[in-house]
């Protein structure tokens, strides 16, 4: 067992060309820009951000579900070592069995014309991981039981199920190929609160049981706080802060993280008016401001923030932050 991270990204950028001007300069959407990230084995890694932060794109890039423009993503689970930017053919197919995705929308992610059994069995059949129908059925039953779906459910079609149940089917499908790395893209966002907790607990118990590594993408900080070991915060395609969960929530260092935390509505009715409110809107990813991307809304922005983009620096044990003024703001 190596102590190298399971999957790591170096200077990862994902750009999408914008359609339109054939004559003018090519416009790109810089969905992800220069991201360095290391995810350790068996870690439950959280990725938070608002719209336009690039978190979904980053997740997909790490699955090679979207093309990588610059940079490297390396996957090393002890058995194989892949460089995702150059991965193709049989190796890519193999990677697919080791890295899977759980979608956000439980209603769109399941083919309505297939039975639950077929949906869950599909990865096994496509990837040729089992040799016989009995073996497939056996594996399907196994993972369905783990996700608390019973045999009755396997015969039915998705339209028979509620959102929470469908999400469990989605999870079962992602896990049936026994992957090492799972990206959960806003997997509980579409669920009711009372069901969310159920699915989150399920994910956590499966992770511990199967020793999986999760990249949990969410916009909901409180959910991430409860379930993740390590958190990275993104803003407009850049990583602005990463830290172990406790540290991040106890002592956030980036002004954006602080604002994000204080914007969460507190359950205490007497807690009103204490939140630090951010003014302004999130800039468009096609036209980001120069220098630090957060400077348009940052209450602490100074001249250097408007010209020079800050790099991620170490500010504590496993705690990195990208801000020019983090030291002084901490001392305040």
């Amino acid at each position: 067992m190596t102590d190298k991270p399971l999957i790591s990204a170096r200077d990862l950028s994902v750009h999408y060309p914008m359609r339109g001007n054939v004559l003018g300069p090519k416009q790109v959407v810089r969905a992800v820009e220069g991201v360095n990230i290391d995810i350790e084995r068996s870690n439950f890694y959280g990725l938070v951000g608002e719209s336009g932060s690039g978190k979904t794109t980053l997740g997909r890039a790490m699955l090679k579900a979207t093309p990588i423009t610059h940079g490297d993503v390396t996957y090393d689970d002890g058995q194989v070592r892949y460089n995702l930017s150059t991965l193709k053919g049989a190796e890519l197919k193999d990677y697919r069995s080791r890295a899977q995705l759980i979608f956000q929308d439980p209603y769109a992610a399941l083919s309505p014309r297939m039975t639950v059994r077929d949906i869950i069995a599909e990865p096994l059949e496509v990837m040729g991981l089992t040799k016989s129908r009995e073996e497939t059925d056996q594996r399907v039953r196994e993972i369905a039981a783990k996700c608390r779906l019973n045999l009755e459910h396997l015969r039915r079609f998705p339209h028979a199920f509620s959102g929470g149940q469908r999400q469990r089917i989605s999870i079962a499908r992602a896990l049936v190929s026994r992957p090492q790395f799972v990206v959960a893209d806003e997997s509980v966002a579409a669920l009711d609160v009372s069901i969310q907790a159920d699915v989150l607990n399920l994910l956590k118990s499966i992770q511990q049981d199967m020793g999986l590594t999760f990249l949990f993408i969410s916009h909901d900080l409180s959910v991430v706080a409860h379930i993740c070991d390590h958190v990275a915060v993104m803003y407009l395609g850049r990583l602005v802060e990463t830290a172990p969960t406790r540290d991040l929530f106890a002592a956030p260092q980036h002004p954006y993280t602080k604002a994000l935390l204080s914007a969460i509505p507190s359950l205490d009715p007497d807690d009103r008016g204490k939140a630090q409110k951010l003014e302004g809107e999130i800039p468009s990813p096609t036209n980001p401001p120069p220098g630090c991307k957060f400077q348009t809304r940052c209450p602490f922005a100074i001249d250097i923030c408007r010209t020079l983009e800050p790099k991620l620096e170490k500010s504590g044990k496993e705690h990195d932050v990208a801000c020019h003024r983090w030291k002084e703001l901490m001392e305040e």
Partner: protein
Amino acid sequence: MTRLLEVDNLTLQFDTDEGRITAVDDVSFALDAGQVMGLVGESGSGKSVTAKALMKLNPGNAVYSDKTKITLHLESGSVDIMSLRNSTEMQVVRGGAISMIFQEPMASFAPAITIGDQMVEQLLIHTKLNKKGARELSIEMLDRVGISDAAMRFGQYAFELSGGMRQRAMIAMALSTKPKLLIADEPTTALDVTIQAQVIDLMKDLVTDFGMGIIFITHDLGVIAQTADHVAVMYLGRIVEQGSVRDVIRTPAHPYTKGLLAALPNLHDLDSPLVAVPGDIPSPLERPSGCVFHTRCSVALAGRCQTEIPRFSNVSANHRAACHLVETKGGI
């Protein structure tokens, strides 16, 4: 405090191919001017249907029971909403005395008409202003809700504005007719958390300035805690707990409310596990008998909870819950 709205025994069923589905069952509440009332519930709770019933916006197959009585108290007199038969009569109420804002602002603005034109159209219907006056008032309202450069935005289309700005524009449009009652149906659910905080603040300011009553519908208890004075918790079409926000959130009495609060990830206590409410929300075709929550209630009494619908018992002066256990514990 002047009483603004009284809803008594609202019961609403839908005639569908599968039979008669009960969407709202015996809901009663009252609202005073200048107050914010929260309607909290998950999917299938009937909160949106209840709100739409106030303006009779439900689809044609909706069947109201005879005991339903909705009274709107305006300066010009009291209006019995149930007695208004057709759209012409309803037009006075819709958009004039009562305004509504929705979750998806892109869906409520017509995409091919400028925002300004839509706001002016509404004013021309409900007020005696001429086009010039309507335009001035609209720009003033856009400015009031915090949209910079309001005169330019007036001439823009909905897709040219960001999510947060669209929501503000919708609020401006809803408020330009100076309604007595504003119904906000999940207005912040689709917004980023930092934008949500801004919009919530805006709404609270407007309540103070305009003296309106707001019915705030959401599934997010945190948002309710920050905005509402009173809250009604709904489950499968019934109100299970009602009272001042402080009382209900600090000392919940009904098992469902307790379950909801326990399932919420809490930033102050990262060690406590997420406790889910067991089971799934029953489909409206399978409404449980007796207490609608008994199928998921961990403290349900065998027998009584399955057969008898609980009536409201007072937990304190401003706080009541519909639960047999609360009743037997003895209320005030």
